[in-house]
């Protein structure tokens, strides 16, 4: 699998996500969200802590299933697919970037980037070539053999970006990607993500608290109490 995956058109209809339903600890993380994200769009999702941003991102990226409502990719209902089918869609079509990077500590930078490719049985030579190229692309040429603990926070996040791009996904989902970075690294990572989106034509959804980050998107979604309260496109 080395072909670029076309970004899907994503549609959420009346999506509700409740955790611990029927228990005293019941939490309604999303309360009937309707949302459409066309292919290639750069969307920021902002809002206070606990408003449902990460839950929304998990549903967009098929990490989670809605309690009710529908998640559609290109008009195809994918939210209710089996775990295996959703895993396959994630592997081929989604790149995740997490706030805490989540690199596997016992793998080198290159091995971390190769991880999604291995799952797709990309031949070893192709894997190595592509991972080295991706690391160069994110400014980490020559650091392929470094382990995560030998990298700075900014470098770790660059590796995470390279890993997210490994299988040429059409959808990039970033959950507070600059939350643990200083301003210099924040700017560098944002520039990198924008360049990747532009070059690859991928859809980019960033969850962020940072207004500076949100400002760089072309569409701004604001959430509160599990609902979308504002959805603004730049002119």
């Amino acid at each position, binding site marked *: 699998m080395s072909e670029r995956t076309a970004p899907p058109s994503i549609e959420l209809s009346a999506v509700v996500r409740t955790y611990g339903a029927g228990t005293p600890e019941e939490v309604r993380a999303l309360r009937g969200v309707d949302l459409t994200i066309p292919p290639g769009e750069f969307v920021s999702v902002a809002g206070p802590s606990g408003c449902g941003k990460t839950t929304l991102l998990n549903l967009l990226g098929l990490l989670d299933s809605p309690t009710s409502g529908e998640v559609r990719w290109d008009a195809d209902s994918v939210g209710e697919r089996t*775990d295996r089918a959703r895993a396959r869609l994630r592997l081929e079509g989604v790149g995740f970037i997490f706030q805490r990077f*989540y690199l596997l*500590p016992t793998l080198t930078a290159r091995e971390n980037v190769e991880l999604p490719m291995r799952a797709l049985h990309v031949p070893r030579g192709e894997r190595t070539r592509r991972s080295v190229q991706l690391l160069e692309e994110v400014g980490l040429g020559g650091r392929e053999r470094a382990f995560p603990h030998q990298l700075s926070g900014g470098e770790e996040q660059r590796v995470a970006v390279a890993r997210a791009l490994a299988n040429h996904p059409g959808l990039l989902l970033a959950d507070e990607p600059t939350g643990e970075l200083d301003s210099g690294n924040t700017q560098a990572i944002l520039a990198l993500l924008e360049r990747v989106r532009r070059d690859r034509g991928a859809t980019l959804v960033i969850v962020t608290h940072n207004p500076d980050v949100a400002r760089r998107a072309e569409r701004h979604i604001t959430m509160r109490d599990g609902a979308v309260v504002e959805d603004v496109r730049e002119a």
Partner: protein
Amino acid sequence: MTRWGRGRSLRHSRLQLVLAAAAIATAVALPVVLISVGGGVSAHELANLQNAGYQIVVSAAGLHGITHAHGYAAQILSISGVTAASPVLSVTIDAFTTAASASPVLAEGVIPDQFIPTLGPSEAGLFPSSLPLGDPTDQVHFAHGTYSGAATYDVIVSTPYAAAHSVSVGQRIVLSPVNNFTLGTTYNVTGTFGVPPTVLGPTGAFAVLLPLSDLQTMTGYAGGSAAAPDAADTIQVAVAGSIATDPSALDQLRGQVQALFPYYGVSSLTQEAQQLQSASGVLTGFYLALSSVGLSVGLLFLALVLLRRVEADRRSIGVRRALGIPGRSIAAEILWDGAVLALLGAAAGVLGGYLIVEALAAWATSAVQEAAQLAVFDPVILGELVVGVVGLSLLAGAVATRTALRMPISEALR
């Protein structure tokens, strides 16, 4: 193996892995020792039975309990298929080369031309092919139970006795039922026979073989008011070629012998071998049951370690699942880790068991040492043991796998 721990947790993880492997190794070493030694002793006994040279044995309760041994032997010999019927009387007597050199010896009285030597590889060839004891049928001296015929007074002695007392063929020794030279009878040494020194202790190694009637009269077992007439301990029966290896034909022949002497025990060595094998199988099962307790503890520990690893690595597992790596790959990795650990533990256990047996064979007390020296390491049984442990470890790993894959990804990433 993939390790997802870090720093101190990685060291803890390694320690847990080492301890789990050690627990399995300990659990495996026990059955290896028990089965190899137990199996070895059984195999040795079985080989002894198979190499006995005779296939049917007539025995009676009590000391020298078979009476009329010469006559019964003749009756057995008349049964079709029987090639030899050898009554044997074993009594400890004293042998003297001079009046002051009493030495207890194990005396065996036999009918020379019916004597059945043991066929085992370490015993075969120890006896002369024809015993040089004068009257081959032992009928002259026996004289139809009157013991009035001329005795040959021939004896053959064991090589250890001959060596210890500088006795050679042609020399004379005195044999007495008690430690009293004056009550003894002078015998001509007409030959020697070897004794496997590893099988018999010193007393057994000092042995003499003489005509049955001679030993009976010497020890009072020719008959009379105080002793059974024409006594023997057993009558060993050898049969011709194909019958010897056909259990049903042998059993039929055993029935014929039993019909002659319903009041004596008649058993075939096939039966005894089957009983021995059956007992050995029961013992092996018992050993395995006993060992399964230790094995269960080892595998529970392994399951616990795998579960702890899954718990410790929940975020890494969550990341992999988030990236879309199939659950079966993650499951395979956890199962592989468990299987490799169990394999290493089991291999260490087999090696440890082997070393323990070797140590017992070298340094244990004599009885244990002797048993350990007979140990047999059957690669099939050891292989089955290792495969069984690995199989059970997969079950243990399945518990950890289930936990890993049932964890919601979003929770694993928190």
